[in-house]
């Protein structure tokens, strides 16, 4: 059973510019006029997540909404285990698959087949697993003989198909999506949507960060409104989206 429990998590990024990241500032203090930005500290800090608590259970489909810079992507990365919060705790049970960039790891000089392996390995599959799924993935892409050619000879739509086919062949417990998944041309779209439906139905928990209301309405059963690194509201999708619109109008 997949579950996510975040308690009072905070994530703060120190901002090092070229000079403060260098050793000179530490080895030769006073030489450069001392500290940069911030009060009292050595460096200025961006508070990306501020005291965030959230509990998600098996079956939850959650949409993250909020302005750019509200902390949606940072929260997704915390869930993926990429950022460990500086304060608070995160407990994630289940296999997590972050699909932030569905073409991550693909190489233009390698062939379509090689790229299926590459992408699969980046998604955490073993070689054996990929080999087993290879026929199914290859068939779904409808790329046929093209799979023997280097990826650089593909059109953007063909690349998208390949990335989509491999990325949706995994079966994670927890699926993290940033701005949804696109899938190329119209003819392919129906087929892709079907697959996407089956793919997302299998996941125990989905967290989707998006600015597209229709995407959130279609995929999610619950929404979280974020603002300046804080969670300001959790609840039904329609209610939260309404509140978000109101806040935009008020601003």
């Amino acid at each position, binding site marked *: 059973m997949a579950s996510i429990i975040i308690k009072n998590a905070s994530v703060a990024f120190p901002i090092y510019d070229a000079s403060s990241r260098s050793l*000179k500032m530490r080895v030769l203090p006073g030489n450069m006029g001392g500290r940069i930005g911030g009060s009292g*500290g050595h460096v200025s800090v961006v508070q990306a997540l501020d005291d965030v608590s959230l509990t998600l259970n098996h079956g939850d489909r959650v949409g993250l909404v909020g302005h750019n810079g509200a902390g949606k992507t940072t929260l997704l990365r915390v869930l*993926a285990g990429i950022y460990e919060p500086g304060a*608070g705790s995160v*407990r*994630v049970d289940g296999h997590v698959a972050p699909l932030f*960039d569905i073409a*991550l790891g693909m190489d233009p000089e390698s062939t379509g087949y090689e790229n299926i392996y*590459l992408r699969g390995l980046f998604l955490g599959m073993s070689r054996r697993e990929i080999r087993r799924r290879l026929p199914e993935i290859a068939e779904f892409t409808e790329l046929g003989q093209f799979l023997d050619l280097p990826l650089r000879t593909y059109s953007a739509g063909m690349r998208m198909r390949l990335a989509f086919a491999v990325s949706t062949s995994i079966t994670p417990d927890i699926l993290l999506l940033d701005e949804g998944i696109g899938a190329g041309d119209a003819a392919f779209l129906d087929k892709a949507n079907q697959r996407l439906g089956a793919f997302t139905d299998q996941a125990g928990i989905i967290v989707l960060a998006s600015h597209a209301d229709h995407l959130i309405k279609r995929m999610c059963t619950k929404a979280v409104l974020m603002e300046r690194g804080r969670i300001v509201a959790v609840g039904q999708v329609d209610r939260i989206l309404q509140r978000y619109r109101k806040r935009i109008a008020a601003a």
Partner: protein
Amino acid sequence: MGDTSSTAPSVSLMAQLKHGLTRENYQKAVADIVDGWRRRSLWGTMGLQDIRQRYRRSVIGPFWLTISMGVMVAALGVLYGAIFGQELGDYLPYLAAGFVTWGLVSSMVLDGGRAFISGEGLIKQLNAPLSVHVYRQVWGNLIVFLHNIWIYFLVAMWFGQYPSWTTLLVVPAIAIILVNGMWMGLLLGLLSTRFRDIPQIIGSVVQVMFFITPIIWKTDMLPGRALFLDLNPFYYYVQLVRAPMMGHLPSLEIIAGVVLLTVLGWGAALFFYTAYRWRLAYWV
């Protein structure tokens, strides 16, 4: 799967050090290194990819590595052999063995410092253990070395020196060097990511070490023992591989030196990796 908790939202390195050195963080650091090893099909492919990308569509591909190393050894060998008044049949194999080993050790130090910096884009996207980036780099350098080592055997056989059973000891010697490459990558990679001047410092130190380490000169050319040897970690590493390559056993002193370096290096790497591993994603 994971469980993270800590309570100091501080950015000061000292505060993080005090806070980071917990049993829990130590276990997570070790788990990161162990899990990284389990993902070997990932970094194995990435490492191969790095090399293939460099030589894609070139006719002889990575064997350019072998050729350029061969040309280097031949040119340096003839020149310095003459300068030092050495017998070529004796000097050239010695130089070749030292040079290809130096290539492995020095590139592990240099690339180790860049392990996490060059994985920057991936670190923010991929939920894989961070040690994957170090394994990738060490593995890539092993592949290069496996292309270069033939230079030595070609040169040696040209002068009528054939491999003996002792030569097989090169295999465990290389394994030990790779184990050392891991701590170098973890430690130097971590420090370099925070302080971007460190790769530059490493670069100039390694350059100087090439001349200080007996590769183009021999230890017996030096009047008496010198600090250049005793306090030079590169000497121990190079000699550990070069000796069996040339058919004799490395001295006990060399073996003891390497063991000490391995233990100290891994100790330091684990210390810093425990304290600061979780900060890496913030630093890249």
